[in-house]
């Protein structure tokens, strides 16, 4: 099949309403945020090479500088990279193709979403221009955020812009999946990635408004003299923590679900197997939607609250491992007796299982109140959420780009460089985070820039972790430079290089032209995107 290509025009990209181009714009923005967040991570790790000031100017301002790096790393990774990389880039590019639609339900609103996202990225980057840099982590907890000299408005406006973008995207894709499936595609014939996004967008639609309200009140407290979160004046400081995590824990699933969806697609295609226990996995996703709003308290076990709430939420936190378990078994099972092709997307897929198991198992003690009191504020937690959320989801974005790269760019990636990048990434993250698990159990607190009051051997572990971070940095450079170089001069791709049965491979050109499909898609009775038998 041939592709309509008429050269590069910037204005056509900036003002596009084509979901595929919007997806690529999301990818560019999120990778930009990722790059800066990565630099912040290296600064954080360099500072922790030794107790006391290492690269910060001096002991007096060290904490302030370190807090700015922590703020930008956290906010940019979650709000700027992971959520937009999965629900912006991957969902935009793939969902209409997977359901046989020519575009999304509201293309102009889709364009507005990506503009708002880019505006959010620009506002976040202003951090490096203003003298009063935000230093409130990605959480923005009062009373510190209200009293600090750092610029809270940049944080709040970034959340507003990217949050509003997320709400609009949720509306758009929920309607698109509900109403624009090609004739013949029923709910249980959808791709797993489509299901994962559908459930993630429900969570996003319901919970993002809570965060928007929470940070709006924070803004009013800081700049207009209200006292919603000020206990000295009739407010409640814990109100913010509850509201923040009421959104932010479900946000973990907004990231986790599409990441799993991507791995399902890769597993089925590379193993040439149908999804094992498809319906159970779909019910698992729906179960996560139902329970995700009932687990936020495990982020604030140490705060004042009635015991029945603490215990109840410990149970629901453990309970959510049931639907996650259903999904994991289904993912494992998809490989069973498959003719597995091991290429870079599948490397990331295999690594994902390992990350899922280590990240999941280390989450269990953190869900249990009595253990969480000891481990919750240590670098054990830091390593846990990097395994299950940071690295697992980052690898899913990398896997998605590598897997769908031939469709997006019309060219093949340099497989050797992609594999080399994978090994640097995989080895690097393990070298970085295993030492943090170990010293976390021994009492190394999270978020401390200076740990000179703790046992001196912690410094050795931090040094190893820092070396790991630089190994990851090499892997990231290899991976991202491969995308750019291969997009320009990679080998030309065929329409379906992996032999997938999914519509985006079987029914479209490479890359897909305007309108996606040369003719209207109608699928036969009994069709599924995993018809490999």
């Amino acid at each position, binding site marked *: 099949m041939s592709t309509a290509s008429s050269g590069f025009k910037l204005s056509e990209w900036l003002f596009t309403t084509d979901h595929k181009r919007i997806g690529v714009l999301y990818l560019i923005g999120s990778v930009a945020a990722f790059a800066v967040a990565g630099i912040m991570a290296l600064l954080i790790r360099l500072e922790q090479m030794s107790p006391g000031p290492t690269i910060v100017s001096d002991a007096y301002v060290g904490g302030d500088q370190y807090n700015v790096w922590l703020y930008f790393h956290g906010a940019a990774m979650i709000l700027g990279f992971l959520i937009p990389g999965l629900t912006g880039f991957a969902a935009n590019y793939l969902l209409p193709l997977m359901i046989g639609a020519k575009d999304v339900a*509201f293309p102009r609103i889709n364009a507005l979403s990506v503009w708002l996202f880019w505006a959010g990225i620009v506002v976040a980057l202003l951090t490096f221009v203003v003298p009063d840099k935000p230093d409130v982590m990605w959480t923005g907890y009062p009373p510190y955020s209200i009293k600090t000299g750092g610029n809270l408005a940049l944080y709040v406006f970034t959340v507003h812009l990217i949050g509003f973008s997320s709400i609009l995207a949720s509306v758009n894709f929920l309607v698109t999946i509900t*109403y624009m499936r090609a004739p013949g595609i029923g709910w249980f014939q959808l791709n797993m990635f489509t299901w994962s996004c559908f459930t993630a967008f429900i969570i996003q639609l319901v919970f993002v408004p809570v965060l928007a*309200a929470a940070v*709006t009140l924070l803004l009013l407290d800081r700049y207009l003299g209200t006292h919603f979160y000020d206990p000295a*004046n009739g407010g409640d400081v814990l109100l913010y923590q509850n509201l923040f995590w009421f959104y932010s824990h479900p946000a973990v699933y907004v990231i986790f679900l599409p990441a799993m969806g991507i791995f399902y697609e890769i597993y089925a295609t590379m193993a040439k197997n149908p999804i094992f226990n498809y319906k159970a996995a779909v019910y698992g996703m729906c179960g996560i939607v139902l329970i995700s709003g009932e687990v936020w308290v495990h982020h604030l076990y140490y705060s004042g609250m009635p015991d029945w709430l603490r215990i109840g939420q410990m149970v629901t936190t453990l309970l959510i491992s049931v639907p996650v378990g259903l999904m994991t078994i289904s993912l494992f099972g998809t490989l069973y007796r498959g003719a597995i092709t091991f290429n870079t997307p599948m490397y990331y897929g295999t690594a994902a299982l390992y990350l899922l198991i280590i990240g999941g198992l280390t989450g269990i003690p953190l869900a249990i109140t009595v253990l969480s009191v000891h481990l919750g504020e240590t670098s054990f937690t830091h390593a846990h959420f990097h395994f299950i959320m940071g690295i697992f989801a980052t690898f899913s974005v990398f896997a998605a780009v590598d897997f769908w790269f031939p469709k997006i760019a019309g060219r093949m990636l340099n497989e050797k460089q992609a594999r080399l990048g994978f090994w640097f990434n995989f080895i690097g993250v393990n070298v970085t985070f295993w030492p943090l698990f170990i010293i976390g159990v021994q009492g190394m607190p999270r978020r401390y820039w200076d740990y000179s009051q703790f046992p001196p051997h912690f410094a050795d572990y931090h040094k190893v972790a820092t070396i790991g971070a630089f190994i990851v940095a090499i892997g990231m450079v290899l991976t991202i430079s491969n995308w750019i170089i291969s997009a320009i001069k990679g080998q030309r791709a065929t329409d379906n290089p992996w032999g997938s049965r999914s519509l985006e491979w079987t029914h479209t050109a490479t890359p897909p032209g305007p309108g996606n499909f040369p003719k209207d898609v109608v699928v036969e009775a009994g069709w599924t995107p995993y018809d490999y038998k």
Partner: protein
Amino acid sequence: MGVAMDRNDVTPELRRRMNRAGLFFFVLALGLVGYLTHNFTKEYDPAVVKEAKLQKQRAAAERAEKSPNK
């Protein structure tokens, strides 16, 4: 705006249904923001706000009184 807007796959009836559903979801989201913000505003005691403002004014007046530039 590009070719994506020239569509023959969306009938007027489907467009109406999609618009209705989109509006429902959007209003749901905005309604949640409004409800939460309003709810917290209600819980907030206006008498305490008044007192806090008075305290601030008193503190400012005291500072002005003690200022050497006076």
